[in-house]
């Protein structure tokens, strides 16, 4: 981030030790026991539950009518029905996820199809993609962050069909970026030569959203 005062775990906070007002910074705050054996991105804390965050009502999406469509910059499209998605090679990634609202959840278990499989035969030189959802949500990502075993269309969480609140029947899963990039109720991926902001990105959130660089908001 661009802040002159990045969090400094394990060392004195430069702000806390140099306050022009002379007042102590949050005196008496101790916080929880520091997490051991895990690595948290800056500003995150470990969460055992699975909180839900969505900008609107949860849409009802039936897998019998679900489809996923990739559109290249040429206009060419490729679509998969639910049955076709299930017939593709399946991965079972176990990954850590990081929400911009500051919770991180370790060792989440998913099943789904790698974007490497879905995009393999798509003709495109685009560097960016806009992912769209049932319900109208959108989010933009670099194509480089969707390829190379880094992103999936996930339909199973912890051995069970993905619950609608968490994006079922299928959501994008891009665990190395903040979780708003992992669009729930995913239905489309449109390749773009030039980056354009998606839903939250238009509202001030970061275009990439790398939790390890704490890219929460535009300008971070």
């Amino acid at each position, binding site marked *: 981030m661009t802040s002159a005062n990045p969090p*400094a775990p394990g060392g004195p906070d430069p702000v806390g030790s140099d306050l022009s*007002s002379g007042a102590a910074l949050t005196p008496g705050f101790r916080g929880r026991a520091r997490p051991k054996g895990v690595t948290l991105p800056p*500003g995150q804390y470990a969460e055992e*539950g*699975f909180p*839900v*965050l969505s900008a609107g*009502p949860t849409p009802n999406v039936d897998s019998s009518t679900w489809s996923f469509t990739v559109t290249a910059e040429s206009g060419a499209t490729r679509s998969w029905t639910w049955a076709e998605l299930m017939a593709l090679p399946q991965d079972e990634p176990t990954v850590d996820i990081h929400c911009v609202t500051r919770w991180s959840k370790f060792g989440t278990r998913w099943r789904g199809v790698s974007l490497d499989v879905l995009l393999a035969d798509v003709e495109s030189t685009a560097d960016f993609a806009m992912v769209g959802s049932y319900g109208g949500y959108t989010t933009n990502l670099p194509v480089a962050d969707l390829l190379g075993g880094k992103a999936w269309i996930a339909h199973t969480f912890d051995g069970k069909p993905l619950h609608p609140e968490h994006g079922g029947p299928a959501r994008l899963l891009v665990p190395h970026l903040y979780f708003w990039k992992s669009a729930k109720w995913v239905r489309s991926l449109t390749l773009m030569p030039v980056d354009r902001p998606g839903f939250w990105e*238009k509202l001030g959130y970061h275009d990439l959203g790398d939790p390890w660089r704490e890219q929460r*908001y535009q300008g971070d």
Partner: protein
Amino acid sequence: MTEAVGARLGARYAVPSGWQVATLVDRRAESPSAETLVLDVPGWPGHQAGQHLDLRLTAPDGYTAERSYSVASGPTPPDAGRVEVTVQRVADGEVSPYLVDVFPPGSSIEVRGPIGGWFVWDPVRDAGTPVLLVAGGSGLVPVMSMARARREAGDRTPFRLIYSVRTAEDQLYTDELAALAARGDGFEASTIFTRAVSLTALRGPRRLTSSELASWGWPPELEPRVYVCGPTGFVEAVASMLVAHGHDPARIRTERFGPAAG
């Protein structure tokens, strides 16, 4: 990292970069488990009703914890640079028990914001379209900012608030909500209790029903702007009922807080 995009909408909602040091100038109890913190934030750029801010707390060993809180105050407070948040104590929380029970007036905290441009209501841009606010528990805080924005602007946009809270003791802003409704300028509020009610209450303690939501809200034909904020289960239930009543999902804005709130 990305190519520049001309006149991007994001610029309108740009978050001021970096953290600034704010001072707690006052605090007041809203209920036995919730306190309003009055922060003096030099250079606060102003906010829209419904936006939130980030607070960063620092422990003696340099450990920091960051949390987001909805701004409770309206966009035009009497004192420039004063921003209020209302914090509900979460029993096993890391941050909220400190803010509610310990954080002393006169001390400092780092603030970043305002943040968020979706769950917002603006008395100029959004005037005229009826508004339905549905709040569960401390989900009242951001919609209270909207009610305050309306009052500050002298706006008469029809507002209806439905507030679901466990018990009378847990209610926030009780007198102020009564005063807003008593102005007779188109603000109506309905409050229900889900856990306990007085012996003389006509309605037993239970969750908000579909028929209550329909009769205390607006009919979908009026195409109201709807804001729903509260715990995940509450928001899911209310949003589903609203869609079943015929409200366009695109006009329903939600903000959820899960078990992670703390």
